[in-house]
Each structure stands twice: as C-alpha cells, then as structure tokens.
C-alpha cells in the first residue's frame, strides 16, 4: 500500500477568497499525520478538497496522488469507484452524517453493495467485521439500531466502520473527536491507531495539540493556507521552528513534560 501525496493544493471559495494556498503533504502507509492550526486556517477545506466534497462553485488546484491516481483529476465514475475503496472519510458530527431513517446495517449494506457484487449474506458478514474492527462489541445488535439510538462514541465508531468497510488505503478524519468526551475520545483514537498499525494511512485534522502529540506520528502546521511546519510529532511539538507553532503551544499551555 502506498500513501497519499499532495502537491500545491489550492482552494478558492465561491465569491473569491483563496483559503488554501499551496499545500504539500506526504503521507506514507501506516502513518498518522496530524494537520493542526488555528481556526480558519483551512484544515477542513484541505481534507474536503482531497475528497472532492467542497460546496458547488469552489475551485480546486494542484494534485493529490493516491496509488498513482490523481484524485483531483479523475472523472466522476472513477471517483465514485475510488471513494470507499481507496479513500475513506470521517467527519465531525457522526450522528448527523447518518441517514436518520436507516439502520446501521442498512448503511453498511448500501456501502458494500455499491462496490462489491456479492450475495447479501456475505455483505452482512463483511459489515459485521467492519463494525467489530471499529471496536464495537456485539455488532449484530447494533446492526438493527437507528442513528438516534447511538451514543456519540458509538456513532463515531459506526462512521469508522463505514469508512473502512471497503478497506481503503487512506483515511481522512476531520475533527472526529471534537464532540466527544475525553475518555471516549481516547478510545476512538486508540482504535484509529490500530488501523494505522495495520497499514492504513490516516490524515487526522485536529485543533487539539494534545491529541496530535499523543496519537500522531507526524505533524503539519497549517497557517493562512500554507504548511509552515512539517515533521515528526515529537520534533515539531518540542522544538517548534515556526512562530505560529510556538504561539499555538503557548496558547495550549503545553509544557514539554506534558507532551512526552
């Protein structure tokens, strides 16, 4: 499995402003890269641009290569095939990302059916495996549940199961723990790390430097649409080169001791 290579990514919103202004990222197989920065820097837009889920009218430039395919240049049919099988996404509010009139099982079945032509029994097996792989006990019970019946942590794990059901090489995670309590947050991120250990690349967008410190291998700092620092987590957070990183660390009141 190879990873994700982003070069010169730019995003213009409808109406003018260029929010993302030339971003380069390298993500290797099995690596967890945390994308941090102040609000408004363009972190979420970067991730959405790679997944091609921007609002209509937005313009994207640059390349995002995954397995020798440029995600930003591929046609609609190809994009649909790649989504789910090469690239998986998770977003901030997991319950809102689920259809309130469908069960968990329904979501998994439709995702798997979109990419694999297999009998229903086999699809269900794969779905249950995905739920288990996302750290959910008793997946068969959860299969019948509706989104409004899930806790925040459960919903985020379901989202993880959906994102990984077709075994994508790369996982994009946009502020996935912002709405969770600290304990649940730690549990979900541990599961994510386990996926990375199995060879999946993870791009983790977060505004929480402690999260980056504890669960990421590398850190990229985004400031005003550009990456100002990019390196191993320990290095960036202990010995920041850019002024912004220092400001962020000070604002988060993290000492070196707390980071290790």
């Amino acid at each position, binding site marked *: 499995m190879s990873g994700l290579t982003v070069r010169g990514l730019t995003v213009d919103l409808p109406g003018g402003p260029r929010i993302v202004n030339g971003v380069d990222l390298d993500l290797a197989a099995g690596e967890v890269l945390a994308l941090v920065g102040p609000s408004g820097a363009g972190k979420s837009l970067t991730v959405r641009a790679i*997944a091609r*889920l921007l609002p209509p009218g937005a313009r994207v430039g640059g390349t995002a290569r995954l397995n020798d395919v440029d995600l930003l240049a591929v046609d609609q049919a190809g994009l*649909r*095939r*790649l*989504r*789910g*099988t090469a690239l*998986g*996404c998770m*977003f901030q*509010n997991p319950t*809102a*990302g*689920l*259809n*309130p*009139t*469908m069960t968990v099982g329904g979501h998994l079945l*439709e*995702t798997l059916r*979109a*990419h694999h032509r297999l009998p229903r029994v086999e699809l269900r097996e794969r779905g249950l495996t995905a739920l288990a792989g996302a*750290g*959910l*006990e*008793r997946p068969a*019970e*959860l299969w019948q*549940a*509706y989104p*409004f*019946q*899930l*806790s*925040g*942590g*459960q919903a985020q794990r379901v*989202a993880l199961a*959906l*994102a990984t059901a*077709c075994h994508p090489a790369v996982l994009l995670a946009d502020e996935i723990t912002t709405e969770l309590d600290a*304990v*649940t947050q730690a*549990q979900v991120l541990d599961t994510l790390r386990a996926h990375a250990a199995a060879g999946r690349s993870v791009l983790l967008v977060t505004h929480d430097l402690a999260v980056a410190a504890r669960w990421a291998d590398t850190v990229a700092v985004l400031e005003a649409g550009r990456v100002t620092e990019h390196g191993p987590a320990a290095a960036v957070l202990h010995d920041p080169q850019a002024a912004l990183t220092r400001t962020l660390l000070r604002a988060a009141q993290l000492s070196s001791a707390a980071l290790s």
Partner: protein
Amino acid sequence: MTTAQFVARRAVTAALVLLAISVLCFTLLDLAPGDPARAVLEARSGGLPASVAEVADQRALMGLDDPLAQRYLRWAGGAATGDLGASSITGRPVTAELADTVPWTVLLTVVATVFSVLGAVAVGLVAGLTKRRWLRRGIELAMFVLGGMPGFVTALLLLYLGAARWQLLPSGGVGRPGEDVTVAVVAAHLVLPAAALAFGHHFGSYVRLIQTGITGVRAAPHVDNARARGLGAWTILRRHVLGPALVPFATRLGVGTGALLAGAYAIEVIFSWPGMGRLAIAAAKAQDYPVLTAVVLVTAAFVIAANLLGELAVSRLDPRVRLPGDTRRGPVVVGDH
C-alpha cells in the same frame, strides 16, 4: 404500546367522536325548518300539497312527535344494527343509498390521492433540485395562484379544457347511457374529476412541503457522507434526499386526505359523479335528514381513518417519530462507547 394497542385506543376515541357527532347532527337537523313528513308526502305525490290530516298521520307513522332523546335512541339503536333509516325522498333504505354511492367516492378519492402524491413529488423534486431560478420561481408562483382557486373553479377549468374545448375526455357520469360500464370506460370518466380533485388548492402546499424538504435535506451532512462512501447519484437521491424529505409531506397527507374528501363534494356535482358527495348535496337541498346524517357520519369516519393511517405511515417512515405512549425505544447501550 404496540401498533395494535395504539390502533385499538384510537378506534375507541373515534367511536366516541362519531357518537358525539351523531348526537350533534341529529339535534341540529331537528332544529331545521320544514317538516320531513310533509316532504315525504309531497315527494310521493309528485309535488301535490298534502292536507293537514295526512301530514299528522304521516308524522305519527314516522314517530316524529316523540321526544328528541327517544327519537335519537331509536335511530342510534337502528344504526348499531345496520339500519340507518330510509331516505325521506326516495324511500329507499339509507344503507342502500350509501352502498350505491360510497364506493364511487372512495374510488375517486383514492385515484385523486395517487395523482396528487405523484404530481407533488414530481413538481416538488423539480422545484427543489433545479438550479434555474426562473423555473423554481415559476413553479412557486403557479402554486401560489393554485392556492387561490377554489376546488370547483379548478374543476370547471378542467371541464372546459378537457371536455368542451379540446373534446378529449367525457364530461360527466361514469358512462354514456347504453354504454357498457367497463374498466376502461370508467377510467376515461375518472380522469377529469380525479385531476380536478388532485390538483386543487391544497396541491400547492404539498409541493411547497416537498420542495422545502428537499432543499433542506440536499445540504445535509448525511448526503455528503453518502457521496464520500461512493454511492451512486441516483441511490443518493432516492434514499438519502427523497426519503427524509418526504416525512413532513407524509404527515400532512394524512390530514390532507380529509380535506380531499370534503372537496370531492363539489367535484362530484360538477362531473355528475355518482358518489356520496352528490348524494349529500341533493339530500341537503331536499331536506332528506336521514341520508344527510348518515353521510356526515360516514365522512367523519373516513377522515378519522385517513388521519390514523397517516400517523401510522409516518411512524413507519421515520423511526424517530414515536406513536404516543410508545415507551419501547431507548439508546442502545452495548457495553462500550
């Protein structure tokens, strides 16, 4: 509480409401001027006035001089066993009149509801999804004007265009005299009245509901999420946009069917459709109280049933909506978070 219990509870309430309506109706019609005995005699004699003695005899025969409560109980007792009295004009049993006319009204209402739903979904989809401002605003304006047209005006317009001007479809009844009443013939006669009923002045609010539902859902996070999982555009539209968007519409439909039924009266008159509505109007004009009471009750029963079906359908469509009294569902706590 299960669905069965819910329905049973509602059935009891419905029975009480119908009982109250029957009392009200009976009492109200009792206040009406005119003498039913005289009306019967004059109908029988073809318009010749009846003498005072004849009227008195007829009144005694019909039990009209008994106290109100006694007359009501007599009627209610009969109704409970299936005897709703006899039409004071034709003399036929009311149940026979109903049996002749109710199926036609049900047919008309059901077909009109189907037209209405299909039409509203089609127009609402276009209005909700189109990026062309002129199309969207055009539809909104048309719906607004439609909301200002009374049902009978729409019916007259359709009658004029369909039957008089362009001679496409028959103008009334369910078959020309001498013609066999086959399915095809009835269908041809059904088109105009059903269309008039379907696209009457509630249609605009249906379209608006669907349109708003779609524009609201189109930008929802779960739609983005569905795209991110690689689902096809058609699947997304069908299951993730249309599904949740139709919930407010479904809620309204249950109530709207009642209004549809009421609107059917004027339509039946215009198109000479042999249904309950036409019967009711004729009964009202002729002061045929037994028939009128029966029709009011039957209509009320249908409306209550339609409301109930609507509520059941919505609870099926949207699992978040619980029937009142349902304590079953709660968050699934499966050990871990």
